[in-house]
């Protein structure tokens, strides 16, 4: 229930940000909408810790900043490769076991890998991650990475 209320509030804020018009009618509509969306979400059973990861805490925002830096760095690398006349790639696959304990954590981890140019996650589950890298270095860099640690820390809400 608490989660539903949280969702409701988030959605209402979302509405208000979108709307920008604060007439009584539209605010009322916003409340109605948020209520409806929450109800609908519950009906579809998407209101749970996976869908509304409030447990992650503030650290996730810091992680995003860090991730942005990582993305920028690897973007430059990939751009250089694309522009290099010889196309110096060494595509590789690596398998490893990530340290996250929840599906949500694994998802954040996998998506972060994919978001970073030069690497992409193909499979991810409790047992194993399968990652494709544009270069061998990039791919191997995913094993026991700083990213892995970051996500695990966020996951535990620390």
């Amino acid at each position, binding site marked *: 229930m608490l989660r539903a209320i949280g969702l409701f509030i988030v959605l209402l804020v979302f509405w208000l940000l979108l709307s920008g018009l604060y007439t009584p009618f539209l605010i009322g509509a916003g409340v109605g909408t*948020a209520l409806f969306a929450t109800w609908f*979400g519950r009906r579809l059973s998407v209101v749970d810790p996976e869908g509304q990861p409030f447990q992650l805490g503030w650290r996730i925002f810091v992680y995003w900043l860090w991730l942005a830096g990582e993305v920028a760095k690897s973007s430059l690398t990939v751009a250089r490769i694309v522009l290099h006349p010889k196309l110096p790639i060494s595509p590789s696959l690596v398998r490893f076991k990530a340290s996250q304990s929840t599906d949500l954590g694994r998802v954040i981890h996998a998506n972060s890998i994919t978001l970073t140019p030069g690497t992409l996650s193909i499979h991810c589950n409790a047992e194993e991650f399968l990652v494709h890298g544009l270069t061998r270095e990039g791919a191997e860099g995913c094993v026991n990475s700083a990213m892995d640690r970051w996500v695990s820390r966020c996951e535990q809400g620390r």
Partner: protein
Amino acid sequence: MREDLILRVVAKLLIPFLVVFALYVQFHGDFGPGGGFQAGTILAAAVVFYALIFGLDAARRQVPERLVEVMMAAGVLIFAGVGVASLLLGGQYLDYDLLSHDPIHGQHRGIFWVELGVAVTVAGVMLKIFYMFADRGRLDEE
């Protein structure tokens, strides 16, 4: 695809926002035409997204096909009904001015209902088409 965790988590995350976004477009559409269509599409997309990830049967349970059909029909009825209402009030077809004492307000009200009708219909039609497809594919497999 339910046990593809990435898709599952992303879907759970996105769906409520999709619904709000749909209704945002709907409610802000009366400052300009067209909101209803987008709203309907997005609303339908939310359900389609759900069905893609959690399966057609689950989607059908929560949003039954009969409801979808009623939505299609009801939307058109709302849309055309507004026009008829203006006819009954003695104006031209879709003459919103007559829907309220204040013409501007009347127009707002008229457009609002028309857009609502559009949204409901569009959502219904999109879902109907989706169900039809998904169903066909299923028959195909057997």
